[in-house]
Each structure stands twice: as C-alpha cells, then as structure tokens.
C-alpha cells in the first residue's frame, strides 16, 4: 500500500508540473498573438505567475500527507548535514550516549526494586509479620505464635513461617552444601506460586516425624539433576538422610525472602507446642497473604487484638508474650525500604549527569548553529517559514539523540553488568536487573525528550530575526543574545557539577569516618571461614571432638599465630543468635527485665585470637569443659548497664528459657561492633562451646596469621580435612574483606557518585572551554584592536581568564544553594559528617576552580597570541 501511495504521489507531481507548464505556455502563446516578442512574453508571464516552486508547494499542501513528506525530507537533510560535520556529530552523539546509557542502566537496576511490583500474583497482598523485641525493634516470631495466628486470625488466606536450612547434598558428584529453607506447608500458597513439576507440600508433610520430602528449585534441578523429569519421586541424600523430591519450582520463580535458597522442606515442628522447646524460640520469619477484601489496617488491628488478648488454648511463655503487639508490613516495603534512599539518590544523580550532558550538547548545537547562520538565512530568503526551520532543526537534534540513544544502549548494557557486579550483596531482586522491556521504553522516552530539549534553544535562536546578518561575513556584530545563552548554560553546568561533586565528597568523608571506627577487635591478618559438621554421626561429643582437633591442627599450620572457633562472627552479616539474658540480681532495676544479648559459643583462645581486650576477671580457657562450673564472659556494655560501678564477677545469669542453668560471670571483655560499624548494640555473652545445651553444628574459624592471611587458606583447609575430610568449609574471607562488605551499600553509592562526579567535572570543563573558545574566535577582531591600541598580552590573558572565572564563580554560587538543597536526599547515607560539612564544600570548590583554570588556559593562550596586523587587515 505504501508503494502505491508513493507512485501515486510521483504521478501527481509530474502532472502538476505539466499543468503549470501548459498554463505558462498558453499565456505566452496569448501574448505572442498580441504581438509581443518571445523574450518579453516569457518574462512577463513568469513575472505574473510568480514563484513556480512556491505555487507548487502550496498546491501540494492541498493533497494532504505533506507533513510526512516534509519530515522525511528533514531527516534526509539532517543526516546529510550531520555527516558533513563528523567531529561535531561524534562528540555530541558520544556525550548523549553517555548520559542516556548511564540513565538507562541505573533505571534498569532501580526499576525491579522500587517501581515494579514483586513477581508474585497480587504481590501487594503479601505481608511480613514480626514480633517486637524488648527494645522495640522487629524480632523473629515463634512457632507458637504462628500456630495461634493460624487458628485465630481471619484476615489471611494463608500464613507461613520459615527458617534457614543448609543441608549438604551428597550423591554421585561431590558433596555440596546448599542454601535452603525449612518452611511450613503453606509457604508456596502464601507466595502464590505452585511447583511446576510434581506437587506442593500439604498438611500431612508438615507433622512432627513426618516424611522427609523436599521441593527443589529449577536451577538446582537443571544443574545437579540434568533437568530429568523423573526426579519427582526420586530420593536424594541430604545430610546423610534420604529425602524424596516431590516437586520442582518453575524457572521464573524468585524466592525473594532468601534469594539463594535452592530447596525447601517442611519444618515439621511439634504442633503441641511443648514448653522450653525450639517451638518457642524467636527464629522464624512469618509471611502471610491477605484475604481478598481485607485491608492492611484491618489486618493490623486484628493482629494486635489477638496479641493483646491471650486465650486459654494458646498459653504463651513470658518471652513470647506478644505484649508489645505484632508488626505487619508489606513484603515489598520490607525488602526495599532499606535500599530505597540510596537508590533514589543514585537515580537523582544520574539524571543530573544526563542534564549536564544535554546542556553540553545544547551548547555544541548553538556553536554549530552560529556557523550555519548563512545557510538558514538563505533558506528564509527563499521563502521558508520560521516554523519550518525550527522543525528542521528539531528533527536534526532528534536524529542526533537517536544516534546517541542507540550508542547509549551499548553503554547501558555494560553499565548494567558493572552494576550487578558492584552491587551490595543485600540488594533485593538483583537477579531481575537487566536491560529489559521497561528499560528500552525508558531509553526511548528520554531519547525523544533529550532530542527535543537539546534542540529547542538553538532552533529558536537560529531561526530568529536578524537572519540578514548571517548573509554578511563580518564579525563586527556578535549575536549578543546567542553568547548570553551559551554562558548561562555553562553556568548551569558548573552548578550541577558542583552538586554532584559535593554529594560524592560527603559520601567519601562518610566512608572515611566509618572505617575510622574501632570495631573492638583487631581486623588485620585475620582469616575467617565457616566449618560445618553434617551427617548423622555427629552427636554432641563427636562434634566437640571434631572442632577441638581441627583447632589443634590449624594451630600447627606454619604462619598461623593462633586459631579459635566461635558460633557467631562479628561483622559477618550472619548474626541471628540473640537470647534474652536474665540476671539473678541487678542493682539497676528489675532483674525480671531481660536484656537481649547475642550469644557466642567460643573455643578457648577466641579472645586472644581476635585481640578482644580483657577488662576484668579472666578469659575462658581449656579448663572450662562440659563438667566444670558453667562460666560466662560478658561484654563491657552489658556489665555497665547491669552493674554500674560494681564488679560483676561472680554474679549469675541465665541465657534464654526460664529453666536454664545459671552461668557465673568470670570475666568482662571489651565491646565489639557486631552487626555493623554503625550500630551500637553490643551486648554479648560468651560461653564455652562445651557448656551449651546443644552443640552448635557450624562454627566460624578465626585464624590470626603472621603475614597475608588469605594465602594460608589451602593449608588451613587441608588441616581441617585431615581431621575429617567430608566436612564442608564455606564462606572463606579475610576480616578486612568482611569489614568492607559490611559497608557495601554506602560503598556502592559512593562508587557511583564518584563516577558521576568525574563525568560531570569533565563535561563542565569542556563546556567552559567550548564557550571561551567560541568567544575568543568571535572577538578576534576586538582583541586585535586592543592589542594595536597598546594592551599587553598579559592583559588579554587576564581578560579571557576573567571571563572564564566569572562563569565558574557564578556557577559555584548557584551550585552551592543547589547542593544544600540536594544533599537532603542523601542524608541517610551520610555518617559522621553533616551535609553542610565545610571541608567538603571547600575541597570541591577548589577542585572546580582548578579545573576551570585549566579549561580557560588554551583559549586565553590563543587570544594572547592573536596577531593584530592580521586581524585588522582581514577587515
């Protein structure tokens, strides 16, 4: 159909041509008959007829579809003119590519987390439910609470609980420790995604002493079992036990609550809720799906009502009393609220970079527009309407933007891979980050926007009145308005660059402050790894013996100063072992009020290996065995809060349930930063590994090395495997790396801001350079005159410098107010620095000034070397 329209079009053109031609001929004929000469007749007819081309064009407009033709014409013309100026085109396109590409990359990363809804049906109805800890912070729930809610709550279609599970898969290939979840049977119902193969769990699977069944992930299925569909019903060996695989999850399923989980198995807790059992430990995460028609407020109210009205059938121990109520938030909020401020800040920063890139390209277009004044003046004289010229220029800038956008997609692809590699480990939905549909739509949208934005000002300028000056060659008149706009744009660029650099600077200082904090132990030359005992043959005694022998073996490795085991590692991100600590007597208030503290089961030598200082009493040693009196070492903060100014040695305390044994305090050690460098909750109790009621199956090995800790890894692993070769050793890392990882989120934001800041700086510098260069070129004659009249070269240098630095100065002043406003957005990321930190601001201003001086140098140098005789002669 298109071709037919085209050929019809051609036909009509030819006919119109012929029609007008025949009209002219007949008119000439008439005049000849009246006796005029041929030349006179033809001249008269042409004059009378007017502008043939114009007539044709106006007539053509009657046919319709003209706008499309004109658009195509503009595109072709634009392409030609871009090809004629390759240098300009490349620079402008690359600048836009950078801006568009970076923005698209950041958008791709941010979209699945902040904007898209979670990949579950009606994801906004999936809620997290939390208990409250004694300090008001959210706490994991207990199985008892779960049972009660299942019975008593009417707001949920389904509720489920889960806890981490790390079984070792043995079989044909080598043993592998997997991440998994122990879940209640309703887990997949809450999420709304059933298995793709086989069946979901049902209630009969989730009974105590129930069948050993498991559902595996698509990834595990393909990787380990070759995607064999007969896997359903087959048995696999987990922790030396046979488990029947009953289902496989779909490939698209994302287990957001534990992204690395690859298999699920029922909790199989005791529904009769025996007291003092794990059914009453706060270690489960609870998630529920709201019933249709039930609002979140309604559900919250009901939960709190249930919490505050205990009933006979569900008696609660004091530590799971639900006195503070229950907390509920949506899964989406729960996952994203932590990273939201950082991501929004980064999104804002990249849009600033895009803006700076646009300003730069606008300036380039304006410079080019000035060069093309003659061309547009000619077209206007030939009858082009102003709107047509503007449309032409906008089409050109759109074309430029499209080229930039296409290149930008390449930049975006690289950017996204870099982002995923850099991203902090806790970033939710990291697997969903990619250049996908929404990213393309975003890229397309901003490309169009950028094209229009960038072309608008130059188009308005070039097509303005005063076109006649373009036909004259002299540089006597500088188009004053044109220069003013360019200078304003540069000022804007400098201001935006300042905002970005200040943000980067503040984040940098925050990182410095963060890492200046004393973690409470010596983090250098410290290697850590987690050693697990798996398999049925490990009872309490075997476990203790294994770890004791391993510690001995590791200490013998050359290069090792000391080694020890602990059940939890500070700053490892893996701290979940918190208990209520109850003191027998406490001078500060009610001994019934429990402190929450983290429990560390440590081997002898732990404190020495970690270099945690002893404040009072003694450290735990090899004499604190299972039969010896129960000893505990507490942290300084706990001692101060419970026994201010007194000696806590000899006091007794209980850890956890009310009928537990009494431990006697034998020592006080210095505080250690536990969850992160920033948080100050540092109450801890340390007990010997052998004196806890069960043996921790997985312990962290800490090794102090004489030299580089990482190089000892193979030797240490071999030492442990010499004791028992089947035990998995995972998460090997130096303490320094863990420390760095604990600030991963800030570091991520910092890296991005630094990158953006540098780009902004370079763009602003080139902007200043461009404007000054242009100005010098246009004022060549003026400079020549000045020199001829006696100005010295240094005067000219000063002149240009003054011009450049004024622009910078204005930009800085405006940027300062912008920075003060904008840094509000990153306040949550800052640590130890105020957002008005003077050192940062001064540093950034100095940097900008230095860079501007460099940018001014070449134009100033050129101006000073102008030869007045040449310029004056050229008049």
């Amino acid at each position: 159909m298109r071709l037919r329209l085209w050929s019809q079009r051609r036909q009509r053109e030819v006919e119109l041509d012929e029609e007008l031609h025949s009209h002219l001929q007949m008119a000439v004929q008439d005049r000849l008959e009246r006796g005029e000469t041929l030349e006179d007749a033809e001249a008269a007819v042409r004059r009378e007829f007017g502008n043939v081309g114009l007539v044709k064009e106006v007539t053509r407009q009657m046919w319709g579809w003209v706008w499309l033709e004109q658009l195509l014409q503009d595109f072709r013309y634009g392409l030609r003119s871009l090809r004629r100026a390759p240098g300009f085109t490349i620079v402008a396109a690359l600048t836009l590519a950078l801006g568009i590409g970076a923005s698209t990359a950041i958008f791709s990363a941010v979209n699945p987390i902040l904007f898209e809804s979670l990949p579950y049906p009606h994801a906004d109805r999936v809620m997290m439910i939390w208990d409250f800890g004694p300090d008001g912070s959210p706490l994991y729930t207990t199985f008892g609470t779960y049972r009660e809610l299942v019975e008593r709550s009417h707001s949920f279609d389904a509720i489920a609980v889960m806890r981490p599970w790390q079984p070792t898969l043995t079989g044909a290939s080598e043993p592998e420790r997997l991440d998994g979840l122990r879940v209640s049977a309703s887990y997949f119902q809450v999420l709304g995604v059933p298995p793709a193969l086989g069946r979901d769990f049902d209630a009969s699977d989730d009974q105590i002493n129930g069948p050993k069944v498991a559902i595996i992930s698509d990834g595990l299925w393909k990787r380990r079992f070759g995607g064999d569909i007969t896997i359903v019903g087959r048995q696999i060996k987990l922790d030396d036990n046979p488990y029947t695989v009953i289902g496989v999850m779909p490939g698209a399923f994302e287990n957001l609550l534990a992204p690395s989980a690859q298999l699920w198995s029922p909790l199989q807790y005791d529904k009769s809720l025996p007291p003092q059992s794990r059914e009453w430990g706060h270690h489960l995460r609870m998630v529920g799906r709201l019933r249709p028609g039930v609002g979140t407020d309604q559900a919250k109210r009901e939960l709190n009502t249930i919490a505050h009205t205990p009933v006979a059938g569900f008696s609660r121990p004091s530590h799971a009393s639900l006195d503070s109520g229950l907390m509920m938030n949506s899964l989406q909020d729960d996952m994203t609220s932590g990273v939201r401020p950082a991501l929004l800040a980064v999104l804002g920063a990249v849009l600033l970079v895009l803006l700076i890139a646009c300003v730069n390209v606008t300036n380039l277009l304006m410079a080019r527009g000035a060069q093309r004044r003659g061309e547009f003046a000619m077209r206007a004289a030939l009858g082009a309407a102003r709107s047509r010229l503007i449309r032409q220029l906008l089409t050109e800038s759109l074309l430029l933007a499209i080229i930039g956008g296409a290149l930008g997609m390449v930049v975006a692809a690289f950017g996204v891979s870099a982002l995923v590699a850099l991203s902090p480990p806790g970033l939710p939905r990291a697997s969903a980050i990619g250049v996908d549909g929404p990213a393309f739509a975003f890229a397309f949208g901003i490309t169009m926007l950028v094209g229009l934005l960038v072309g608008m000002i130059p188009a308005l300028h070039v097509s303005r009145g005063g076109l006649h000056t373009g036909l004259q060659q002299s540089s006597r008149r500088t188009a004053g308005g044109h220069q003013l706009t360019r200078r304003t744009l540069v000022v804007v660029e400098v201001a935006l660059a300042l905002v970005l650099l200040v943000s980067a600077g503040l984040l940098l200082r925050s990182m410095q402050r963060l890492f200046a904090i004393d973690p409470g132990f010596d983090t250098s030359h410290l290697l850590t790894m987690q050693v697990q005992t798996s398999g049925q043959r490990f009872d309490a005694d075997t476990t203790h013996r294994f770890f004791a022998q391993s510690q001995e073996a590791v200490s013998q490795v050359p290069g090792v100063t000391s080694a020890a085991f602990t059940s939890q590692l500070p700053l490892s991100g893996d701290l979940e072992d918190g208990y209520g600590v109850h003191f027998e007597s406490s001078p500060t208030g009610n001994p019934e009020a429990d402190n929450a503290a983290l429990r560390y089961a440590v081997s002898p030598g732990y404190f020495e290996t970690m270099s945690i200082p002893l404040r009072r009493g003694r450290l735990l040693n090899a004499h604190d065995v299972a039969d010896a009196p129960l000893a505990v070492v507490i942290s300084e903060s706990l001692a101060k809060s419970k026994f201010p100014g007194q000696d806590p040695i000899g006091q007794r305390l209980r850890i956890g349930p009310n009928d537990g044994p009494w431990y006697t305090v034998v020592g006080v050690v210095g505080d250690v930063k536990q969850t992160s460098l920033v948080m100050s909750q540092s109450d801890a109790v340390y007990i010997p590994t052998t004196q806890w009621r069960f043996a921790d199956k997985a312990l962290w090995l800490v090794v102090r090395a004489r030299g580089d800790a990482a190089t000892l890894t193979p030797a240490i692993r071999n030492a442990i495997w010499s004791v028992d070769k089947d035990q998995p050793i995972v998460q090997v890392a130096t303490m320094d790396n863990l420390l760095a990882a604990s600030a991963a989120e800030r570091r991520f934001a910092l890296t991005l801001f630094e990158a953006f800041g540098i780009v902004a700086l370079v763009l602003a510098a080139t902007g200043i350079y461009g404007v000054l260069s242009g100005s010098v070129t246009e004022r060549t004659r003026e400079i020549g005159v000045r020199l001829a009249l006696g100005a010295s070269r240094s005067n000219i240098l000063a002149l240009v410098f003054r011009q450049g630095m004024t622009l910078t100065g204005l930009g800085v002043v405006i940027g300062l107010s912008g920075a003060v406003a904008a840094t509000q957005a990153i306040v949550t990321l800052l640590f130890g620095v105020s957002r008005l930190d003077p050192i940062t601001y001064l540093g950034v201003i100095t940097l900008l000034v230095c860079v501007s001086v460099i940018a001014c140098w070449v134009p100033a140098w050129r101006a000073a070397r102008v030869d007045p005789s040449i310029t004056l002669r050229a008049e």
Partner: protein
Amino acid sequence: MPRKLPYQNKIELLQGTLDLLILQTLQWGPQHGYGISQQIRTNSGEVLQVDTGSLYPALHRLERQQWVSSEWKVSENNQRVKVYRLTANGKKQLATERSRWEQLSEAIARALNPPNEESEA
C-alpha cells in the same frame, strides 16, 4: 529589512469567493486552469485578476472536496491540458455559495445605509 509578508492575493478575495467564481465559471462548461483565470478576468471587466498562486491551490482543493473533477485532454494546439468540470455535488455547492453571497451582500448593503432613513420610510 521588511518583514517577510505572507503570501497574498493581489485583490484580497475571501477564499470562499474565489471558490464561488471558479465554480460559476465552470458552469459555463469544462475549462482548464489558464482558461478559468482568463474567463474570470473577462467576465469581471478586467477588474478581478486571479493570482495563479491562489488559483491552482484552489482548484486542487476543490477537486479534493469532489466539487470538481479533472481529466487530461489534448487541446486545439495539440497541447496536453488538464481540464476541470463541475460535478453534481459542485452544482449544489455553487447554489449554496451563491445564496450565501447574496445574503452577505444584502446585509452589508443594509449596514451601509443609515438606519434613520429606513425608519422615516
């Protein structure tokens, strides 16, 4: 520098009246563009000289609105010319335009005569 003037007719004819004139001319029989412009000039006693810059756009517009149709013929001088003729719709449109023009001119005439003369009569 004078402002660039928008394209104008030599005598400011309202667009509607040019259409009216063309349609009226074609009532006398099919004609080509040059012929139409000559005929309008003659019939108006050399007063109305239709600008070819407005004539051809008008003709093509009328054709698009299907008030005239066109075909290529060979003239007496063995030249190929595009000849326009009035269609049935065009005849109706002509009648409408004529009555509108007459209403308009009557109204203008009445507005130009002083009102008190009327009331006296």
